[in-house]
């Protein structure tokens, strides 16, 4: 009996050791991949940071209105992009490392397959966010020049419209929400357009008519009359 117990015990240890022996190379491979990916990520971060510094990216993006001014105390665009690149490379290294285990290979493969969609969604959102800031500044300037007292509200409205649109596109790319997003958007945009049409049609009909008449006069002033009037007697104020 003692012999049999000893045999079972030895077999168990042998199986455990064999399992550990089979597991160790994969673990070692994963650790090596993690270390290598971290090193690669650090190198890529260094190169990207130097490139951005040389290209003066922060100043350019702020000049274009894509990034917030430095005075607002937020992380600089180059720092944000550098961090994003670093963590993307590190995450990729982790996923490749996980695939070293047979047991987790399927999950890692699924995650790897999903990664391009996730990156595309993130890119759409980031571009939308940056574009929305430039649009906000542009709309704000135009609205102020037009003398609209609600310039800030109009500019913010334009910005959030783009942000929400970008978020919806990103979510659709990620496969989140399905058709609900599309339907919701169609309803919201349709509602906005209908409201604006009604507002202009009912409230600003005469203003629109006057603007159109100014832009496309139905009865242009005859040349003879223009000649007699001249600029000196036109009675209009000219900026130039």
């Amino acid at each position: 009996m003692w012999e049999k117990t000893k045999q079972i015990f030895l077999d168990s240890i042998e199986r455990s050791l064999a399992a550990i022996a089979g597991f160790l190379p994969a673990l070692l491979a994963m650790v090596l991949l993690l270390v290598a990916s971290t090193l690669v990520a650090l190198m890529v971060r260094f190169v990207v940071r130097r490139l951005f510094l040389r290209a003066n990216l922060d100043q350019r993006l702020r000049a274009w209105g894509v990034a917030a001014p430095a005075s607002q105390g937020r992380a600089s665009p180059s720092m944000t992009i550098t961090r994003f690149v670093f963590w993307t490379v590190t995450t990729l290294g982790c996923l490749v490392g996980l695939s070293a285990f047979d047991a987790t290979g399927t999950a890692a493969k699924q995650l790897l397959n999903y990664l391009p969609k996730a990156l595309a969604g993130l890119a759409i959102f980031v571009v939308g966010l940056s574009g929305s800031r430039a649009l906000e500044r542009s709309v704000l300037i135009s609205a102020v020049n037009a003398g609209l007292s609600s310039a800030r509200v109009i500019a913010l409205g334009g910005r959030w419209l783009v942000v929400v649109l970008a978020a919806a596109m990103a979510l659709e790319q990620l496969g989140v929400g399905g058709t609900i997003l599309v339907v919701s958007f169609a309803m919201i945009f349709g509602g906005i357009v209908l409201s604006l049409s009604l507002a202009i049609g009912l409230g600003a009909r005469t203003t629109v008519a006057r603007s159109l008449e100014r832009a496309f006069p139905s009865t242009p002033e005859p040349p003879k009359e223009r000649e007699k009037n001249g600029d000196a007697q036109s009675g209009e104020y000219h900026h130039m």
Partner: protein
Amino acid sequence: MQATVEALPEPPATADPSAAPVFVAVDGLSTSAAVQQASRVEAMLRERYPQRAATVGVTAWEGGEVVVRPPGAATPSDPGPVASPMTGGGVEGHISALAAVLREGVRQHAAGIALVAAEPHDETADWLGTLLAPILEGEFDYVCPAYLRHKADAAINTGIVYPLTRTLYGRSLRQPLGGEMAVSLALARRLIDLPDWRRDPANAGSDAWLVARVLTSEARVCQAWLGARPRPEGQPEEVSQMLARVLGMVFREMERHADRWQRVAASVPVQSHGAAGVLEGGPQPPVERFVATFQLGQRELAPIWGLVLPPATRVALQRAAAMSVESFRIDDSTWAHIVYDFAVAHYAKLVERRQLLLSMTPLYLGWAASFANETRDLDAAATEARVQQLCGTFEREKRYLISRWRWPDGFNP
């Protein structure tokens, strides 16, 4: 836009200079108006210079470029962007006619080459003779037009273009961007040989380009008062778009000639021909609306202005925004600093250029309101003296401009 026609034979060296040919091109938004103006110009040239061979052409858009055609050959239905001297160069939809006019004038060996607007001119003034005489008499290479305007009119010119051009290039042209011009054959040859037509076609040929090129050369310059300004055709351009367009052209030339204007210390007057002056009366700008737009800009655009203007200027603007409409003022020194800071921001690209120029509109309207308040009760002579005082401030503050231009990121309280 390269010349495809052969030059006419060179006139003999012994030819009488008083019989040298003249070439005048008429340019406008409407071909029919240009053809009518061409016939008027032909009659005036025959009467004033009977001994000279005078040719009149009309600009037209053909085969993707501006060409000069005899009035009879111009087709009113020509599609495409039309050349206009008032808006030439750097503007989408408007192509400068200057290159085509200069080439045609040089081809004809014309002693005087002029570009005039298609709109009817002041019939009480000998405007064409005043424009051409300084060139044909051999005294000058470039004649810049000036017009009789109401004292409050043309605030972009009065408040920015005139003082800035005078300070930068050291010669006092009262209306530097008049649109029309006359040049000598020698100057025309030098201008068409410049590499700018190839390197910077968007800006080469604009009014600002021509004036800057002439004022930074050794050309002999004068100005001609041509009577009341021809009334521009079409709808007036929206003020912010006009300001952005004009300042974009002026700031671009400022950048191109930075090495030259930094060495100019003071300005000298240029010789004037014709009856100079300012028209009495005239329309007053809507000061209340201007001040309201300025105050709105101060409230909403302060973060953008903060990227361009130093704290001292921003404090001055805050004080101005708190004033009532009647007492609203922006002092000359603050205004000169604002113009200079925007020029530096344009050069250093501190803010996207189009947004930068558009964001200046409330500031400009504020200055226009301030100027209108100050000159409301002044007569024409006193108003002109006030403008000269403003120019003096621009010239005194030029050191500030040079310092900011050389060190845009330097400490600036």
